[in-house]
């Protein structure tokens, strides 16, 4: 039996074995690919592809919408369903990119470059087939990497105590805030508001009430999942009310959907580049599938013998973008499951879903629920295989989904958001929370404030504050504790470095924008 071991230390001197056991992984496959779990996985994947294929709806929105449907399920059934949605939606975005030149999800923007020209040449079916298999290759690679790297990272994280977690939260916050959106100031405002929202409720150490305005419901803090549904799903619904009333029509005839082996062999170079790029980009907080897809595309084009052909409809371009896109999914999940730090907005919602099912992501999850962790790994790998099968089998159906009328889709989104929020605790308070944050999220989207930092800051904020205070208790009030522990110092230095670099980069970008505007004005 192949066995790789990850050993760690927990609660001081106790040595704990963390087993990455292929038997456990195989057992995980047995669980995931059986009965209700398999049905949930297929349904989740199917729904995810639909969500991804419809322009304007995102993977994050899909997960947020479906979280309430998992309440009545066992934790693993619910989680594999959400993993199916996540991976399926990331892939599904490419379908709209190819057929109507509009990315189904922001992550699929790079697929437009060569996917749409292929469709114009009458090769829409071939493009979708290559996109499907390429997404599967990227997703599968990253899911396998997740299964093998996560326990190692979790073992390392078991050495962390309060100061390291504080530093980690600071790092996550700095990256999230500075890399999100067009303006770091707006990302910063969104993040700091999220931090303040995370402080509503009881003080983590003293137990007194903070920012509750005398409302008993706020004592436990604002309801996280209704807020997520509001910020990520309902806000998009409001935006759809404003902007999209007519769905584009897809008239392309899809044929030769299942790609030939020689076509896939031609894309092997793209896979070799896109897979590691996707994994590394995914692990980096706040940047995800969209960056990964663009980087993979650019790198494949750079390395190509015929870079001039890119953009005219070459299969390698579609393969690189789609492979890079899905290769980021495992990387996004990695810090979430091992450290409790979500890599992006979608994994923040996944983290919320895990918490609802009483599974707190972080290194202790590997100790307390090793079976569940391996089932998640198996679910992630299986989800990538399932969307490939569904994508190739129902490509014509998914293409038609793009035609769905917004006049019916948007009200349905609203109802799912509101009912889902209500269903969490069967209280109107949650429904009101969802509606209020839905409208706030809509205003944020409208006026260029990124929503993701607000949500990620809420997760990281409570982690940062409680660990900051615990650290001070450990050191009896001496703040130099943050400067005397090597790992803490390194992480804090990284946080500072990332922030400075991001601000410099943004300032340069703004200067370039201003210069461009000035030149344009001069030309006029």
């Amino acid at each position, binding site marked *: 039996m192949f066995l790789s071991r990850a050993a760690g230390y927990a609660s001081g001197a106790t040595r704990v074995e963390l087993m990455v056991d292929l038997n456990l992984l195989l057992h995980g496959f047995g669980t995931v690919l059986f009965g209700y779990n398999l049905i949930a996985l297929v349904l989740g994947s199917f729904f995810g592809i639909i969500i991804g294929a419809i322009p304007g709806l995102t993977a994050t929105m899909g997960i947020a919408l479906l979280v309430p449907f998992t309440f009545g399920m066992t934790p693993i059934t619910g989680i594999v369903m959400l993993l199916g949605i996540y991976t399926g939606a990331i892939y599904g975005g490419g379908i709209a990119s190819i057929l109507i030149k509009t990315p189904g999800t922001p992550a699929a923007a790079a697929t437009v470059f060569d996917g749409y020209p292929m469709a114009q040449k009458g090769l829409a079916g071939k493009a979708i087939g290559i996109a499907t298999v390429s997404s599967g290759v990227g997703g599968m690679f990253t899911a396998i990497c997740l299964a093998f790297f996560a326990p190692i990272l979790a073992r390392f994280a078991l050495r962390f105590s309060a100061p390291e977690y504080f530093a980690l939260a600071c790092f996550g916050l700095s990256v999230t805030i500075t890399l999100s959106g067009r303006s770091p100031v707006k990302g910063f405002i969104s993040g700091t508001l999220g931090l303040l929202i995370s402080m509503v409720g009881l003080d983590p150490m003293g137990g007194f009430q903070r920012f509750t305005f005398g409302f008993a419901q706020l004592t436990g803090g604002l309801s996280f999942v209704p807020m997520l549904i509001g910020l990520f799903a309902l806000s998009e619904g409001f935006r759809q*009310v404003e902007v999209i009333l007519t769905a584009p029509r897809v008239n392309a005839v899809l044929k030769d959907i299942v790609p030939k082996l020689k076509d896939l062999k031609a894309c092997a170079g793209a896979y070799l580049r896109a897979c590691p790029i996707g994994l590394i980009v995914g692990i980096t907080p706040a940047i995800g599938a969209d960056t990964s897809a663009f980087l993979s595309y650019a790198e494949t084009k750079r390395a190509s013998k015929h870079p001039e052909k890119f953009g005219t409809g070459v299969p390698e371009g579609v393969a690189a973008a789609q492979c890079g896109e899905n290769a980021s999914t495992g990387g996004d999940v990695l810090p979430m499951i091992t450290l409790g730090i979500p890599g992006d907005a979608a994994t923040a919602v996944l983290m919320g879903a895990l918490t609802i099912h009483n599974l707190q992501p972080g290194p202790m999850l590997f100790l307390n629920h090793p079976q569940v962790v391996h089932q998640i790994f198996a679910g992630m790998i299986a989800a990538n295989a399932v969307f490939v099968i569904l994508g190739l089998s129902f490509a014509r159906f998914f293409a038609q989904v793009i035609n769905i009328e917004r006049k019916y889709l948007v009200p349905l989104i609203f109802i799912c958001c509101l009912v889902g929020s*209500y269903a969490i605790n069967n209280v109107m308070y949650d429904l009101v929370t969802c509606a209020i944050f839905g409208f706030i999220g809509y205003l944020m989207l409208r006026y260029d404030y990124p929503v993701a930092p607000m949500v990620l800051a809420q997760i990281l904020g409570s982690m940062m504050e409680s660990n900051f205070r615990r650290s001070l208790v450990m050191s009896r*009030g001496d703040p130099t504790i943050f400067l005397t522990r090597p790992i803490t110092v390194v992480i804090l230095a990284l946080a500072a470095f990332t922030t400075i670099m991001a601000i410099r980069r943004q300032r340069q970008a703004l200067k370039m924008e201003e210069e461009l505007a000035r030149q344009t004005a001069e030309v006029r």
Partner: protein
Amino acid sequence: MKKVDIIAALLLLPVCGYVFYEASSWPMLPDLGNPGWIPRGVAACLLVAALIMLARALRGRALTLPSRLEGADRDRVLWVAALTGGYMVVMNYLGFIASTIPYLAGFGSALGERRWGRLAFFSVVVPVAIYLLFDAALNVPLPRGWLR
């Protein structure tokens, strides 16, 4: 969108003030650190960001891209927001199905649907299907109102 940035910054300033005010009223806990440090630090960061945005807007370098919401688009969003607010109020009294039918019908017509038969069918089938899905299949009860 100078105006939007100025309004946003001016809205954030009292938020920062309130955080400072409330944090100063919290009890000091021996050996547990000052509970107000982090909230005050966060509020200070928010204050700086709001002031930067305000200063940029006043100097004519707004951060928000110009895009006005006007006319029919604005009316539609406001109508849907009002409809949703009303729906939340009546749902607890009328129950899920009875309140969702007129909500969906109103929503659809706000989005310009004029095929009334189709809209009526949608407005009736969706609430019943969702109710059955949550109540019967997922075991998550929804407000019954009159059906109770």
